[in-house]
């Protein structure tokens, strides 16, 4: 876990240095006194795990009630926002300066950009978390929320992507899953070929070995592109490097699963996220044997879509080491004018980010805790699949934290879609992506 996000840390440090030169040091804000604040705090959150009544907000509702009882005069309003709408709604709220006080945000995700931090929309947490408290967080989880040397949020979860193997289909095709979840790309391809078969003998393929989708903001397929080494941008993020021969070869290899080897359905590389998951997990379908997913899918396959499955690494290429892409989730405090309210908001954020809460969330919500002490409580002792996924945290690389990453991402993903539907070769597509990205970063 400690190696986690090494590349991200270098990128963040470079970016931070550049920003400090450009922007200079910000003004020191008054820390305020939480006890002196009386009033309303607004928090946004998306649905998490359900209780007996299928209420997916019960955890935060209970924490709010507990906090309000202990802090007379403070009212906390929970605004329920579907995760799919969180980014857009937050964007609109920021544009209209009508933001909540607290929002659940992956700082490197699409809802909040580094540009927002530079503009002062996000409050720094440095005054509210001392050195000892910070030491309880994984260093790289803090790095993900650190910009220009300041902490802009409290990490509460770590996610990563892994290969999920449908063991029923492996058994049906007589294929052995990779030992300890480790395999080379050739072994993966051989397995995919055997897992592609005509189940009912009508001459048509019913089950495919592999599938995934390609869309801006989604990175399930990307660890395949890193298998021979390389990254989208160079270390100081001034140059597009996703057109390097090793990356181009990796992209073409994955697209060829459909185009050449015919071990993936026509929909490989499309934009149907739900349909792709259903093809792997839905009992009535089960038409794809292997798919890469973020850790939430492990929880889904253990709960709503009971599936006999195993977790495996992404297959390795020339670099020999398996790679995956990770993310860090957490709470951020939006801009506050009142110092006392700022302190109260920070206090509540800490209240819902304790080791116990992160342990609880890890057990029920399919995420890894961002606190060392929560991980040490071993939330996955009865969950071998999550334990296996957690072992992959050493393989994590983070995406570049470029201020214009969303535009860069779209330029790359749009071209990737054209590789996977056979309209361009990987080489052509990345040459075209380079032209678009060069315009963005220069």
């Amino acid at each position, binding site marked *: 876990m400690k190696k986690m996000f090494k590349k991200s840390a270098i990128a963040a440090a470079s970016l931070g240095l550049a920003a400090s030169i450009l922007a200079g040091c910000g003004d020191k804000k008054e820390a305020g006194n939480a006890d002196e604040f009386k009033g309303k705090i607004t928090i946004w959150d998306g649905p998490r795990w359900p209780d007996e009544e299928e209420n997916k907000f019960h955890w935060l509702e209970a924490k709010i009630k507990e906090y309000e009882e202990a802090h007379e005069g403070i009212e906390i309003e929970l605004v329920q926002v579907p995760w799919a709408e969180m980014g857009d709604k937050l964007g609109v709220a920021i544009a209209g300066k009508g933001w909540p006080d607290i929002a659940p945000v992956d700082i490197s995700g699409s809802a909040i950009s580094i540009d*927002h931090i530079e503009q002062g929309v996000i409050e720094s947490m440095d005054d509210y978390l001392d050195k000892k408290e910070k030491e309880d967080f994984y260093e790289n989880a803090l790095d993900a929320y650190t910009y220009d040397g300041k902490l802009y949020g409290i990490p509460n979860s770590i996610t990563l992507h892994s290969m999920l193997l449908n063991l029923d289909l492996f058994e049906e095709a007589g294929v052995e899953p990779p030992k300890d979840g480790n395999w080379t790309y050739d072994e993966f391809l051989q397995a995919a070929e055997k897992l592609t078969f005509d189940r009912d003998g009508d001459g048509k393929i019913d089950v495919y070995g592999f599938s995934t989708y390609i869309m801006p903001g989604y990175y399930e397929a990307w660890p395949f592109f890193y298998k021979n080494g390389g990254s989208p941008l160079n270390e100081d993020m001034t140059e597009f490097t996703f057109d390097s021969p090793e990356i181009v070869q990796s992209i073409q290899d994955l697209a060829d699963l459909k185009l050449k080897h015919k071990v993936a359905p026509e929909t490989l590389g499309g934009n149907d996220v739900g349909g792709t998951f259903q093809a792997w997990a839905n009992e009535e379908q089960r038409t794809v044997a292997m798919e890469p997913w973020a850790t939430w899918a492990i929880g889904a396959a253990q709960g709503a879509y009971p599936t006999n499955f195993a977790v495996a690494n992404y297959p390795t290429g020339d670099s020999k080491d398996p790679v995956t892409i990770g993310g860090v989730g957490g709470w951020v405090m939006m801009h506050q004018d009142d110092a006392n309210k700022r302190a109260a908001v920070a206090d509540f954020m800490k209240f819902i980010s304790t080791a116990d809460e992160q342990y609880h969330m890890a057990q029920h919500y399919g995420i890894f805790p961002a606190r060392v002490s929560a991980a040490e409580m071993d939330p996955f002792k009865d969950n071998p699949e999550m334990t296996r996924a957690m072992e992959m945290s050493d393989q994590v690389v983070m995406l570049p934290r470029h201020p214009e990453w969303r535009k860069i991402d779209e330029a790359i993903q749009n071209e990737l879609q054209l590789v996977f539907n056979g309209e361009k070769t990987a080489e052509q597509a990345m040459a075209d992506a380079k032209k678009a990205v060069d315009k963005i970063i220069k």
Partner: protein
Amino acid sequence: MTQMPMGAVPKKKEEKMKLFRKPNKNLFRQMKKNYSAYLFLLPKLILFTLFVAIPVVWAFILSFQKYKVFGSEFIGLENYIEVFQSEAFWIALKNTLLFTVVTVPFGVISALVLSVLIFELGKLSQSIFRSAFYLPTVTSMVIIAMVWRWMYNYDFGLFNYVLGWFGVGPVNWLGQSSTALWALIIMQCLIPFGVGIIMYLASMGSISQSLYEAARMDGAGKFKQWIHITIPLLKPTTLYLVLLSTIGSFQVFTQIIMMTGGGPGSATETLVHLIYKTGFRDFDFGLAGAQSVVLFAIILIFSIIQFRVLRHDE
């Protein structure tokens, strides 16, 4: 030929000048006289100001700014220059124009044909068909898009299922650049233009039957009556519907975000989806404002052209 005296104003022109001069001169007196009408208009006027006029003006102001949450800066025409230099804008414009050029004539003509067919029916049948064809208008486009997404599904979709009957292999309708935009166009064309049908039926009901009787006495058949009486007298309705559907087509968005996200590549990128991404994904509200103003200008130009071509001359 009779010469007009020097300095004399032609009668028709004089009437027009009066029309423009009189309300300006007596504006306040007129308003005072009709204050009750203005009171009735006030709620709508307030809503219009708050939710249409102010945002439009704000978007226009934003288009000259580098937007920042705390203190935007004026950058002149830079956003407009960026709009016209952006490849994405021209791709989106091309796709939007193709969508509009195909769907608007198809929608209006099909509404006219359907209205004529329905108009011939009895009252009960008319009501049934009128309701049936109007139903998609009151159905959320999100729902319609979800249904059509299923119909275009590669593995389980209706279209590929039907193609299978004829021994034709499945088509990746929304996943190929060559078919994705056309799939959206076909979808739009096959959704009945409910407003158009209702308006055409209403307009046809107001055409005097004596005109048809006279035509019949002169030996005109149904088709000739349709060409020489119905269509010319429906011209004001047609103009309104063409304007309405052109504006709607230029603003196509829900289908795009629900079904393709603008992809594959940029194959289904449209202007409003591009504005949405620029504003709410890139948070570049200045550039999004400039794109919106350009879209407004394009729609305005198209509307003026359509108005001049289709207007009902006295």
